[in-house]
């Protein structure tokens, strides 16, 4: 069972419960299931059945239903089979002691007619424990997690450890833990039993043991609390007891408490009768909990008892579950640069996320199982309720292109083809992988790579009609595409095919300057303002022929990407005065000038392509996508250099964004009455409720504060004005490569030292790149040479002249970029690049009211509604996704404050940080 969420919270009486008000999809093997919790923190399905008899159920993970959704548990089957309401107050990990305390605490809040107590036999041992072992997800360390427990003093139960201590003690060596019934040792024993199949439970045969003595006392306490109500005791057997058809020896002990209104049920025998090792339909393979079939069997046993002995009435018909009429479509992007998934509901993009955020592997290209799980969770939809799954690649065309490539390079072709085979096989088998990894049985479709980008840009844009321009490295054959969008129709008008690719040309120069292809391009763009475009003529004379319509032809004599591995060759190096810059070495003036030159050439090509798109489409608006659309410098030039009146740049223009576009294209091609719903923002990832946040903070026993609701923005603004650097985590995670205010590190841009402080103490990099500003949309013209919204940080424009204080051209002469970048050149020094430009992100009240409020409060204090916004991560790390990621990043760095939704932590109040992971080596440098 996997989730990126916090689903357990601290409880001072019970030790823990689930986090309230959640609807979480846990991944389980190749499948997943939803767990829904109520306001009290129990997996209690919503059921309003006034006037019905009510059963209250207590137990542990078997009763709570680990491994199955709420509706597949015996509690929920009972509700269907009997004319009654079932309240399930079971919690994973509870001993009988915690189950009985649960009953005592909540029985008054849930009026009921009958109680079912379903202890697992392992509770005999759990009841004696003061704490259980677990793993702290932040530090990776084994810890002891306290729980309440009873002892017997003079024949009387004494409750200990309440309030349950929040402090968790670490375990130095879990193998030598004195806690022999620990999570680890039990897991080990469990596996041992499953493998060895010869160890049953002689330890419980001694009815005078401490375990049984305490269990009897606890039963007496429960019976007293239940009073005259009927009580069903249904002990859950061990796995191996079932496997070896062991007689339920323990029933005799429980039956000592049997009375008229107390029944002890044997659920082991009916389970034994259908279970076999070869065909295990009773226990789930990964966790050993009950299958849906086992839950049904248990429900049958209990309902028979309730009907015969306790006069509960059976319903005549089983209610059918509501079937959703919503049209859900899942888009998938994988096996290229960034994997991702997106979910449409009736044509609206309601969820999208990159796989890297969950796996913490930057640019993870693997199958996006976690992103898919999140999308299904957000949509509250099962995988087989989807109308379609669509992926963004005509893999047969990609295979075709690679075959042509291998033939084109002659003698090296076989080697090239050999290297590509495994990767291509994965692409070819993607439908098979989808079905295998998700248990999906429905229809699967594929959309062309560039069409996916085009659809993702046009259908999410605010425009009824637009020209479409897609530019990237390559997708199948296409490297650049011009299209036209009208209403719900999309047309492809012109393309350029591999290898004549602007994206590959830019990547070749990225590679040559010592940066990583497919991730270092934005560094080259940031480096460009330091250089003089002295190589423009070289590039245009030797490397690329540019036509007036923006179409290009690469001179393959200078490139080696056709042979794979390297991007450029010796002839290329000769053009630029020597070999490529080795990674992580000093950047010289040559690299700065190359960066300036390729940036100038790129701008020329993009502008010409855009003008050609205008000419052949006649549309007044332009939408863009593909990796080159992330070049925010060239985007910024389009406003002045083309006749288009308005622009939309898809915020997830990279490969992950293809997941949105492929699904949208399928939707509009296959749904006759489809209506367009533009995407108002890029906040499409998971959010974490305040319940979950509080549970995270309390469970970890952290020192934290809660904002006063009315003062939240003001308090954050005050912290910023006092030069605190804040890790800001709020609301839904962004989809796309940029942090847009919900997973951001924010700071005061007027502090001249802030840039170097952020770089060296937070991001751990010596960066020549400035930080981006995030500002109130209505103040755009006050600070920048721009008069429109720029919500996605995809446009670079100049800082307003009136704010510049020290215009300089030093950067065009010196090699010391760090010194230059830290010079104060405007009233907003930390966000002003050496050429006086800035990467703009505007925020309005509709898109992100909570952040807008902070900006306006900051303006009251500082005079400017603008902050530094840099992604919430360290170099090489994916942007933080969940609460734990944010907390770890905060503790690993020198941030001053961490805001987690409506809560905040102050670094100086936190304990010393010590963790197992050597995170500085974990993240591969980009």
């Amino acid at each position, binding site marked *: 069972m996997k989730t990126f969420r916090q689903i357990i919270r601290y409880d001072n009486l019970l030790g823990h419960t689930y986090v309230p008000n959640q609807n979480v999809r846990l991944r389980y093997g190749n499948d997943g299931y939803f767990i829904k919790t109520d306001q009290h923190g129990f997996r209690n399905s919503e059921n309003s059945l006034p006037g019905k008899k009510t059963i209250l159920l207590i137990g542990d993970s078997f009763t709570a239903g680990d491994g199955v959704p709420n509706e597949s548990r015996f509690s929920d089957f009972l509700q269907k089979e009997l004319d009654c309401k079932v309240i399930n107050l079971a919690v994973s990990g509870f001993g009988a002691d915690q189950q009985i305390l649960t009953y005592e605490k909540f029985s008054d809040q849930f009026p009921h007619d009958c109680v079912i107590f379903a202890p697992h036999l392992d509770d005999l041992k759990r009841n004696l424990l003061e704490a259980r072992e677990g793993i702290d997800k932040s530090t990776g360390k084994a810890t002891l997690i306290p729980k309440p427990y009873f002892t017997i003093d003079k024949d009387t139960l004494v409750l200990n450890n309440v309030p349950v201590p929040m402090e968790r003690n670490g375990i130095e060596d879990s193998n030598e833990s004195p806690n022999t019934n620990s999570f680890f040792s039990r897991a080990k024993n469990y596996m041992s039993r499953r493998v060895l199949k010869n160890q049953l439970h002689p330890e419980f045969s001694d009815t005078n043991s401490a375990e049984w003595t305490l269990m009897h006392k606890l039963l007496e306490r429960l019976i007293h609390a239940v009073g005259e109500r009927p009580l069903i005791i249904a002990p859950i057997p061990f796995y191996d007891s079932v496997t070896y058809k062991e007689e339920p020896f323990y029933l005799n002990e429980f039956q000592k408490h049997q009375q008229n209104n107390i029944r002890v049920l044997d659920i082991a025998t009916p389970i034994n009768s259908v279970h076999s090792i070869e065909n295990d339909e009773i226990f789930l393979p990964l966790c050993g909990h009950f299958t849906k079939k086992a839950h049904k069997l248990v429900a049958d046993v209990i309902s028979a008892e309730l009907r015969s002995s306790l006069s509960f009435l059976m319903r005549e018909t089983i209610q059918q579950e509501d079937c959703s009429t919503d049209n859900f479509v899942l888009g998938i992007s994988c096996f290229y640069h960034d994997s991702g998934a997106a979910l449409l509901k009736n044509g609206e993009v309601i969820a999208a996320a990159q796989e890297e955020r969950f796996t913490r592997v930057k640019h993870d290209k693997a199958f996006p199982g976690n992103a898919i799980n999140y999308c299904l969770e957000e949509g509250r939809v099962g995988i087989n309720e989807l109308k379609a799954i669509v992926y963004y690649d005509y893999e047969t065309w990609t295979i075709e292109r690679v075959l042509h490539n291998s033939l084109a390079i002659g003698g090296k072709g076989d080697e090239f083809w050999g290297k590509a085979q495994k990767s291509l096989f994965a692409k070819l088998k993607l439908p098979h*992988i989808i079905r295998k990894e998700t248990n999906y049985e429905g229809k699967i479709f594929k959309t062309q790579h560039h069409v996916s980008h085009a659809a993702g840009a046009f259908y999410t844009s605010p425009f009824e009609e637009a020209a479409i321009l897609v530019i990237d490295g390559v997708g199948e054959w296409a490297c650049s595409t011009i299209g036209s969008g009208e209403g719900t129709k999309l047309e492809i008008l012109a393309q*350029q095919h591999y290898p004549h690719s602007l994206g590959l040309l830019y990547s070749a120069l990225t590679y040559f300057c010592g940066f990583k292809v497919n991730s270092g391009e934005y560094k080259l763009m940031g480096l460009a303002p330091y250089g003089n475009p002295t190589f423009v003529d070289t590039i245009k004379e030797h490397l690329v022929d540019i036509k007036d*319509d923006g179409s290009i*032809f690469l001179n393959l004599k200078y490139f080696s990407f056709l042979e794979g591995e390297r991007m450029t060759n010796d002839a290329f190096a000769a053009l630029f005065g020597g070999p490529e810059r080795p990674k992580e070495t000093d950047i010289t003036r040559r690299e700065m000038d190359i960066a300036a030159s390729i940036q100038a050439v790129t701008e020329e090509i993009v502008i010409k392509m855009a003008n050609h798109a205008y000419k052949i489409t006649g549309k007044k608006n332009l939408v863009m996508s593909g990796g080159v659309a992330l070049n925010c410098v060239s985007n910024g030039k389009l406003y002045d250099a083309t006749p288009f009146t308005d622009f939309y740049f898809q915020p997830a223009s990279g490969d992950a964004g293809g997941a949105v576009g492929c699904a949208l294209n399928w939707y509009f091609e296959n749904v006759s009455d489809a209506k367009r719903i533009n995407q108002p923002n890029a906040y499409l990832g998971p959010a974490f409720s305040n319940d979950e946040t509080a549970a995270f903070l309390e469970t970890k026993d952290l020192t934290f504060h809660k904002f006063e609701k009315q003062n939240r923005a003001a308090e954050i603004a005050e912290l910023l004005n006092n030069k605190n650097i804040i890790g800001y985590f709020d609301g839904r995670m962004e989809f796309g490569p940029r942090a847009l205010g919900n997973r951001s590190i924010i700071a005061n841009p007027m502090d001249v030292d802030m840039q170097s402080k952020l770089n060296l103490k937070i991001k751990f990099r010596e960066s020549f790149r400035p930080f981006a500003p995030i500002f109130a949309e209505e103040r755009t013209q006050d600070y920048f040479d721009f008069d429109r919204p720029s919500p996605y940080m995809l446009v670079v424009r100049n800082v307003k002249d009136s704010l510049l204080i020290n215009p300089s051209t030093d950067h065009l002469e010196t090699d010391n970029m760090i010194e230059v970048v830290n010079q104060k050149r405007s009233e907003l020094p930390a966000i002003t690049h050496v050429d006086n430009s800035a990467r703009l992100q505007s925020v309005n009240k509709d898109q992100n009211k909570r952040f807008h409020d902070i900006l306006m409060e900051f303006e009251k204090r500082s005079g400017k509604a603008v902050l530094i916004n840099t992604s919430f991560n360290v170099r090489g790390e994916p942007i933080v996704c969940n609460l734990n990621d944010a907390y770890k990043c905060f503790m690993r760095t020198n941030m001053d404050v961490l805001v987690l939704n409506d809560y905040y932590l102050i670094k100086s109040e936190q304990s010393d940080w010590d963790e197992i992971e050597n995170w500085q080596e974990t993240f591969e440098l980009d």
Partner: protein
Amino acid sequence: MKNSIQQQKPKDSQSYWITPDASEKFSVASTPIEIEETESLVEAILAEFNNTDELLIPEMRIKLNNWLSTMTEEDLELINSEKIRDFIYEMF
């Protein structure tokens, strides 16, 4: 036999843009390639090629056959092995 990787610049060309074939639908079912038997799969792949001279097809058929006859389910397992990361939630 024409290779579709264009390496030599066409003479006197005013533009390198090409006009793609008109297509009614850009999203198509994956069903044709969801078959296991190698020869049928190869034919299904070839049937979807749209940028290959007919004369090249026999050579590509051989390459595809050789390729797919050596690939197994285990090759797919390797794809994901790098990313298997345990982030089982902290239940206890």
